[in-house]
């Protein structure tokens, strides 16, 4: 699942540490999500979207795999 967290975070001038603090996770978690190494749970995705003042749809891009 791709995301635009880094882009939106930098636009708002928020550091990884600050975003982590706002979402009650560690900076490493935010870093892993930004680098597509970890897909967050729905509550965390909502927390990030609220912190960055966007909707989840604006934050994440999910491409469904073709079943065929």
């Amino acid at each position, binding site marked *: 699942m791709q995301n635009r967290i880094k882009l939106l975070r930098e636009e708002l001038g928020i550091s990884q*540490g600050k975003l982590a*603090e706002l979402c009650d996770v*560690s*900076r490493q978690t935010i870093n*892993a999500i930004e680098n597509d190494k970890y897909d967050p749970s729905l509550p965390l995705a909502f927390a990030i979207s609220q912190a960055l003042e966007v909707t989840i749809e604006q934050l994440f891009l999910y491409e469904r795999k073709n079943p065929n």
Partner: protein
Amino acid sequence: MKIKHWKTAITGVAAFIVLTTVIYRTATGKDIGFNDIASLGAVTLLFLSALTWGTKEDQDGVREDEELGRRITEQSSKVGYFLLTLFILVAVGIDQWAHEEPSLLLLSLLGLSMVTLPFIEWVHMRKYRAAED
């Protein structure tokens, strides 16, 4: 100094002292008992735990109580389980080689270790089983 560093230092020194004591007792021909092995295991566990997890106060690493921490624990538990089963298998092999017949206790332990995970998975699955009517 951060809390993590204090915890790592204290538990590291404790683990070193216990390990040195166990090595000294072995070298001098004294018996090593359950207490020695249990103490060594406990302090090593605390040391590795302090080394791994960060704290909320210092923001110095992944925390055990957060989402990524729980995921790491889950994945590590499963890898650890399979490694333990492998260790028991090796122990059964060594025991058979040394005594020319397998130990019933070790064989039972190996069998138990092989069915524990699927059994626990089955028990957990039942919680999510959909009603059929």
